[in-house]
Each structure stands twice: as C-alpha cells, then as structure tokens.
C-alpha cells in the first residue's frame, strides 16, 4: 500500500518542531535532550487554551504544524488519532476524587477523560466535520494509527491526518505504567502524489519482530520510553531524505514494514501539472 507524505509535525524533548529537529534526526546536528516545550494551543480560543490538558495541547500543536507544512486545509480532512493512554494528570485527578469521600468530579475533567478528547478539540478548532477515529494499541499505538490512516486514505482516495501523542502518568499510576518524556508526531498523508508531497511510503504488514535499535542512546531511550516516539526511525529516514526501510513492531508478532523514498520536486510538479499521479 502506497502513501505520500505532505507534511510532518513534531514535539518532543529537545525536538521543537519538525523543521528544527530534522537536522538532528538526520545526524547532522547533535541531539540535546531538553524539557518538552509544548507550544500554546493557538488554534483554541483563549478560555479553552487555559483549560486545555497536555494531550490536547500536544496534539493540536503537531497537527497544526503538519497541515501548515502540507499547505492543506484541515477542515475537510479526515483524521486518525493514536495514543497509548489518555491524559495522565486528568485521569489521576478524577481517580483521586473518586477515592475520596466527596466523589464529586468536575464535568470538564470528565469530558476530558475520553480517549478522543484531542480529536474533539481538533474538530472544533479546525471546524472539521470530516470522519475522525481515535485508537489505542498500547505500546504499538503509533503503528496501529499508521496502519489505520493508510487504509483510510487508500479506501477513500482522500488525504488524511495522523496525530499520535503520549504523556506521562503521575504517581501512583506512573509507578505501574512508565512512559518517557511527552512526545507527539503528526503526518499529512495522501494516497496519490501531490505537488506538496516530499516522500513516498510503501507500507506492508509482515509476521515477525524487529530487534534493531535506533540512533545514539538518548534518542533510543526516547524511542523505547514513549510509545508515540516509536515513530522516530520513520522520522529519521524522512529527515535524511534518502531511500530507507523501517520496521515498526506491531503486537509482538508482526512488523509494519515501511519503505521510504524521497519524491523529487520536479517529478511532483510535473505530476501536479498534468493533473494525474505519477506511477
């Protein structure tokens, strides 16, 4: 199954946006871990911005970056959101109140507890009435989201946005579910080559398991620690702008096999001018 990538968004520790981070992921600059700086949710009105939980701020930031890079209007574009859990702080607050004598939880905390909270805010912020799914496959949620996004784009012959994010749980949940630094990534995919496409992506599901590591230790630690950061090998391949194969583990017994190749600008422009996709 073939897709094209029009735009990428990224937010992680020491990774402030795709444009800033691509040279680091390509190995051209050293990686310097730093606390995650989540941009304010510029898409939201001021009153919502203050109340927005961390997952919402992360998802909206990377989604906005990817769609801006693609030059595509998010309002008519379907989306897939993938996360290994919800907003850790929010559910911790709810669980703490429910374990107390009052048990009166905040209605805002309650609606922010659903897995599709970022998708809901994205739809409101971008005025998008397009289809949107929010899914989970534990540590392999990014691979599952990529598979679902690819299949949707291919089935509907339409562009799609994929937004994956993961944040930490505070104690005591954090003691039993360790997640590394907050991390979010977004892609805009199209089923056919467009003028904005800068890379092609062939995707297949195969039995097996990939044991190879990735990059120098701090980036490898990030990849292993935060489920959404399992996207790092794909991001690095895109950053290098060279043909590469990447295997993402999926559910212990499968890999999502990805073949990435840059799309040369002149070919893409020719395809756009002739109004049809290049082979």
């Amino acid at each position: 199954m073939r897709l094209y990538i029009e735009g990428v968004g990224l937010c992680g520790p020491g990774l402030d946006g795709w444009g800033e981070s691509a040279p680091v992921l390509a190995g051209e600059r050293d990686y310097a871990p730093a606390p995650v700086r989540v941009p304010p949710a510029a898409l939201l009105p001021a009153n919502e911005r203050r109340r927005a939980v961390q997952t919402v701020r992360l998802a909206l930031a990377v989604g906005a970056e990817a769609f801006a890079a693609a030059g595509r209007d998010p309002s008519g574009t379907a989306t897939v959101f993938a996360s290994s859990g919800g907003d850790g702080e929010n559910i911790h607050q709810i669980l703490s109140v429910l374990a107390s004598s009052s048990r009166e939880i905040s209605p805002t905390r309650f609606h922010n507890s659903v897995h599709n909270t970022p998708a809901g805010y994205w739809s409101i912020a971008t005025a998008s009435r397009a289809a949107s799914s929010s899914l989970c496959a534990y540590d392999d949620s990014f691979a599952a989201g990529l598979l679902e996004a690819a299949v949707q784009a291919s089935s509907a012959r339409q562009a799609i946005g994929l937004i994956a994010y993961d944040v930490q749980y505070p104690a005591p949940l954090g003691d039993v579910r360790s997640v590394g630094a907050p991390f979010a990534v977004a892609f805009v995919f199209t089923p056919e080559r467009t003028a904005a496409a800068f890379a092609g992506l062939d995707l297949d599901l195969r039995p097996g398991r990939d044991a190879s590591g990735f990059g120098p230790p701090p980036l490898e630690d990030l990849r292993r620690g935060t489920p959404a950061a399992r996207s790092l090998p794909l991001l690095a391949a895109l950053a290098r702008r060279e043909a590469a194969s990447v295997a993402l583990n999926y559910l212990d017994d499968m890999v999502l096999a990805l073949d990435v190749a840059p799309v040369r600008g002149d070919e893409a422009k020719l395809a756009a001018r002739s109004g049809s996709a290049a082979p």
Partner: protein
Amino acid sequence: MSAHARADVRMPPLAISDFSVVTCLGAGRAPTLAALREGRSFLAPCTFDAVPFPAYAGEIPELDNSPLVGELAAFDCRNHRLAALALREDGFADAVAEVRERHGPARVGIFLGTSTSGLQQTEMAYRNRDPGTGRLPPEFDYARTHNTYSLARFVRSACDLAGPAFVVSTACAATAKGFATAARMIEAGFCDAAVVGGVDTLCATTLYGFHALGLVADGPCRPFDVERRGISIGEGAGFFLLERPDGRHGAETIFFLGAGESSDAYHMSSPHPEGIGARLAMEGALEMAGLEPAAIDYINLHGTATPVGDAVEDRAVFDMFGERTPCSSTKGFAGHTLGASGAVEAAFCALAIEHGFLPGSPHTRRVDPAFRSAYASAGRPARIERVISNSFGFGGANCSLVLGRAG
C-alpha cells in the same frame, strides 16, 4: 451530498457470520430477543458503587462474582468478565475458532470499541492505595485491565488470534467505528475476517461524571418523551464476526452494508444544535451502502433521553427520512451502554431483521409533541429488511451503521 461525508465510499457488503450480545436483558440472543419483543425493560434503581443520587441503571449482577480464572486471570476486571461472557454466548467463540482454522489466525483482525475499558479496576485500586506509600495494590495490572487496548488484547488471547488489532475509543461512537475499520482492512487485504463490537461496563467515573453534567435521569430513561430527563447508564457487550460473503452464507444472512462517520466540530459534550454531524453520518452510511433513505425500514436512534440530544436527532432524522420511516431508541430496555452501544444496538437490529419485529421504547409515555419523526413507542411485528443505527459520542464523534439483507 455534502463534501464532508465523502470519506465513505461504496463498499462490498460483509456477511455477519455470527454475533452475540449480553446486557441486563440477559446473556445471549434468546433472552435479548424475548425482552425486545415483549417490550420488557430491565432498568432498575442503581445499586452500583452505592451512588448517593437517585438513578436507574442496566446492571449485570453476575459480573460482581464471576472472576476470570486460569490463563486469562491476569485480565480479570469487570469489563473483561463481560467480554468473556459475550464470547461464550451464542456459540460466538466457536464461530471465531472455525474462521481462525479456515483463514489462519493472522488473517482475522480485531477492531473493538470501548469507552472506559477496565477503568473500574483502577478506581478500586485508588481506593486501596497503601496508606503509607500511596502505591497501588501489587496485584493491579494496568496493561491488562485499565489500558484502552486491553479489551482487544484479551480477545486476541482468548480466541488465539494473531491478526491486526486495536481498540477504537471515540466515546459512545466507539464500537460502531470498528465496523467501518473492519470493512476497510478487509478491502485493503490486511485480513479476511474480523471480530468487531465491544464492551463497556459500569464504573464510578461515568456514573459521577454524567451526574456532574446533569445528564443522569432520576428514574428510568424516557427516550423522546416530553418528560425525558437524561440517561440511564447500562453495561453491555456485543461481538460480530464479519467476513466476505461466500457459499456458507445463505439467504438468511444479515450483512453489514455501510458506515458513515463525521465530527460535529461544535462542543465536547453537547451535540450540534442543528444535528449536522448526525445527518452527515447517516448520509455517509447510506452512500456507502448505495441506498436511498426510502430503502430503510427502521431507524435505531442514539436517543439517550437527554433533552437536547433527542431534539437534535429528531430534527436530523426528520430532515432525511420525513415522517415515513419508523424509528425508536432502545435505550429504555437496557440503558445507554456507552462505548458498547453501537454493537449492542446493532445486535438488537440484527434480531429485529431476523425475527421480523420493530422494537418499541419502554418508559416512553408521551412522545415530545414538538418532534416530527415517526417515533414508535410500542413495538410491533414488522418486516424489516434494512436498518440504520446511530451512535453519537463526546467530542462530537458520530457513526451510523446500515445492516440488512442482501440486494
């Protein structure tokens, strides 16, 4: 046709090779059918978690004392106890095993939905934190209970499947979306069959949360009633086995014909006041099924009995179907099973098609005179060939399914 519904295109129908359903109406299709036909509600005053406010609920008491044992004991939580029950009923696990043998375990996908998964296990763990350290009890297993994916992981283990799997969690539209995913995955060639549906069970978060929003009725829910005052939360499970049709599927087969998905782009916990998202979902489902509204014999409404939600859905349904197509909400039977409602109500619809009846709406005494759709308060025998079933959730997530006989 709106440009926004275009994500759904025509798809080949998928055969429903088997399905199972468990709610407070009973375990399996037979008791469910009896209750639906007789118009018997099983909603009762809520005893769960000793909630201090008046509420009705659709509880399944046997979940309190039927722990999972053996190889699957680590998955033990209320949600997976119900999942295990639904897999056992109606020969569903046997049907899955047969399909597994025929296609191979890696060719059977699992695309389930849940809203709260095993969150109730974490609620109990927080109440049993170590008084000194604040730590959760050592036996608490986050990955196999609380985590949203744990439902698919449980079913994958219980059924020995090895195909692609994930859990869709779009609040009360979760299980309906799993049907759409399965159709796309089979079309794309990533699997040959799929287990879809899902499970949601009672927990304190939803009871207190909906109460905090002022959306829980003090009595049984009364969908589309002029005196409707909110929801009654239920727990339920519905599983469907979907396959490409072949010679095994005779004339009695019911098919999944289409799904439509949309977003409201309006509010996190209130529907769009003009029902735009609801209408886009229904239009998308009909488009994918290649059907006109006149081809639908019955509309199973989301109809949770909130003042605003029912009014909005009435408007969207009337705009599309006029006053001709009968519709009802079945929430008065077993309550609102939240993330499971898409699959539970798809099962109710499949029974209506199979056995020729139109489900009524227990507890609805006087339909809101401002409503214009053809609401059926009382059930009746009827020839039902094709149905559309609506599921709408928090975050403005909408999904409609079309089920029915072939051609």
